[in-house]
């Protein structure tokens, strides 16, 4: 009997050990499911980080000096910075909605002194409120603003502030803005010795005299596509490089893709994220895109946020950040790809990301003054422009083209922006480095010419 019990006990002990063994090794989750050969990828920070305040700023400032005299200031110009800094220090409260036709804007433009901050295609108020102190109701906060106009009534010295909705029908007047008539006087004073501009249709201003710009040849450094790949993929160990027909590389892990173009100078990253069942929000997408760029590649110099237009339910929003060189936006000469960062986002998830891998050197190798034509020559070019009806803005820009052996050439030009957001060169800068004299092509009007424009003749010298 005792012997039997001993045997039984032994068998039971062995059996329990066996079962425990089987259980332990068949249980899911005990073995590591994903073995990564490379566990942690150090994020190489390529460019610097940015935040939203430095990416939203007006495309240009228009100073209305009264008596039909106007001038335009561009970003990073001394007076632009001084005026914009001061306006950013002010508060705008108590917004009242009204129709754009409630005020005769042509009259305000020509008679009243004032400053107009123009945001190109617009800025959502929610984002603008991070840059300028605003207090308004929800209706206002959900709108998109493309201009702010602050002016001083000629007769009464009363200061009025209007925010223009991008729908071009609505304006919001800030009835409690802490700007004084003296402030306006100071701002306008900054424009006293600047080139005069004359308004033409569609809120486009044309300089009466040639405008000075700079051509430059700048060296660059380039990040390797491998660096970018290591930075964008979770697990570089399972990422493959396949080459496309033209011989350049595509990296993919089966879900994400990274295509390298232009001999490794431009990348487009694609990650087909599924659409989520939450509402899309432009501000959230902008924050997400800035965070994404901060982590994946960073920023090279000044960039300006370009509003993608209202949310379209069928397509994700393409957010663009336009790069600046000096005071002017960079427009690449086709087919060269440079200067913009483009991201497609929905619900804060990045599905497309395109950017250059080049970083410009701090110092230009060559710099020279060039003159952009003004006056009649520009006016005529604009009037003759085939897609004049679609042109919504005219501004000086730098046309970037590659120059071989690691350099980029920037050449000044007048660029028009069309209603769909594309930029086209209207005319290049004048040849040579000499300022055209009045009466010469691209130069200002002759002093004694009577062009019917009252102020054209008396340009302060």
């Amino acid at each position: 009997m005792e012997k039997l019990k001993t045997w039984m006990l032994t068998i039971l002990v062995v059996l329990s050990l066996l079962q425990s063994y089987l259980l332990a090794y068949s249980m899911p989750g005990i073995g590591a499911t994903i073995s990564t050969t490379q566990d942690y990828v150090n994020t190489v920070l390529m460019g610097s980080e940015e935040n939203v305040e430095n990416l939203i700023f007006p495309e240009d400032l228009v100073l209305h000096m009264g008596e039909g005299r106007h001038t335009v200031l561009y970003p990073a110009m001394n007076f632009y910075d001084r005026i914009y800094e001061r306006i950013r220090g002010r508060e705008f409260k108590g917004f009242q909605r009204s129709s754009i036709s409630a005020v005769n804007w042509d009259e305000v433009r020509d008679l009243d002194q004032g400053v107009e901050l123009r945001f190109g295609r617009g800025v959502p108020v929610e984002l603008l409120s991070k840059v300028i102190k605003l207090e308004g109701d929800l209706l206002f906060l959900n709108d998109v603003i493309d201009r702010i106009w602050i002016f001083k009534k000629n007769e009464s010295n009363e200061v009025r502030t209007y925010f223009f909705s991008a729908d071009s029908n609505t304006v919001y007047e800030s009835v409690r803005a802490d700007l004084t008539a003296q402030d306006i006087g100071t701002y306008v004073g900054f424009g006293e010795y600047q080139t005069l501009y004359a308004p033409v249709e569609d809120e486009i201003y044309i300089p009466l005299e040639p405008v000075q710009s700079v051509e430059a040849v700048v060296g660059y450094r380039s990040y390797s596509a491998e660096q970018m790949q290591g930075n964008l993929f979770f697990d570089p160990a399972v990422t493959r490089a396949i080459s496309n027909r033209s011989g350049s590389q595509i990296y993919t892990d089966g879900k994400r893709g990274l295509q390298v173009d232009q001999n490794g100078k431009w990348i487009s990253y694609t990650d087909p994220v599924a659409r989520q069942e939450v509402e899309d929000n432009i501000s959230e997408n902008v924050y997400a895109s800035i965070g994404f760029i901060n982590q994946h590649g960073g920023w090279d110099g000044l960039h300006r946020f370009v509003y993608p237009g209202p949310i379209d339910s069928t397509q994700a929003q393409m957010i663009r950040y336009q790069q600046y060189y000096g005071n002017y936006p960079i427009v690449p000469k086709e087919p060269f790809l440079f200067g913009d960062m483009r991201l497609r986002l929905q619900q804060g998830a990045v599905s497309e990301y395109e950017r250059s891998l080049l970083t410009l050197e701090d110092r230009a190798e060559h710099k020279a003054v060039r003159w952009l034509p003004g006056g009649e020559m520009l006016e005529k070019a604009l009037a003759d422009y085939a897609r004049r009806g679609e042109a919504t803005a005219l501004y000086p820009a730098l046309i970037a083209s590659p120059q071989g052996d690691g350099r980029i050439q920037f050449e000044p030009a007048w660029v028009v922006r069309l209603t769909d957001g594309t930029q086209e060169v209207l005319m290049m800068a004048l040849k040579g480095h000499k300022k055209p004299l009045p009466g010469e092509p691209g130069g200002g009007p002759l002093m004694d010419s009577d062009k019917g424009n009252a102020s054209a003749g008396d340009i302060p010298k």
Partner: protein
Amino acid sequence: MDWRRAKSVLILAFLMLNLVLGYQLWSNIREGLSTSAKAGDLSPETLRIMEEKGIKLVENIYIPAETPELQDLTYRVRTKLSDGEKHVLKEPVESRIVFNEKQLIEGLGDIIPDIDQYVFDVTTSDDKKLILYRMEQMRPMFDVKLELYSEDQRIIAYRQDVIELVSTEKAVENPVLPATIAMAPLIEKFLASGAVIKEIKLGYHGQTFAKSDIQVSAPSWRVMLEDGNVYYIHAVSGEVVTEDELSS
């Protein structure tokens, strides 16, 4: 010490331990053997969200319980369906042969290249267009299709992706996530209220690059909805992808 009594107590104790372990082991084995799970096998949290959002599975559907080890596939595209023209058959053949592999090879084997590699998919086909996917290790490659155009129960034309697998040394086999776990984020975040899930299937899917001949496909769960929407879930990482191609 009363060794006899101690022995009896120990026997009793080990007997009970063995019973517990045995039950555990048995239920594990049973779970592993069954190829399908029911909706009830989704986590209680997921089930709660499904109830809240009114997401349903069609009746008779099964959620696959398999978790095989699969690797990414790299392949070269020889002919692309989307830019290839429709090949019209000289002699139309009966449509029903798609259901039988042998008859299919007999009927179209001389005309359509690699037809033995393609298997009919009932969920994506309709009576005008029969869809077959190229199989790899018994699983469909969702990006590699053969479309048979049918009229009056007869196949009259076809379009096809012809590919060739490329072996890479980098491919690593990884166990896939069970469908019940992979589907949780899809149900929580992506599916609209009232969505009805029609089918869940394991296969291969990847982002297609128009500029490249070589493509990569990763093991993916394909979730088809009654309204025709398709979601892919990367079967190793669990990320959710939509059908639309982004890259140009």
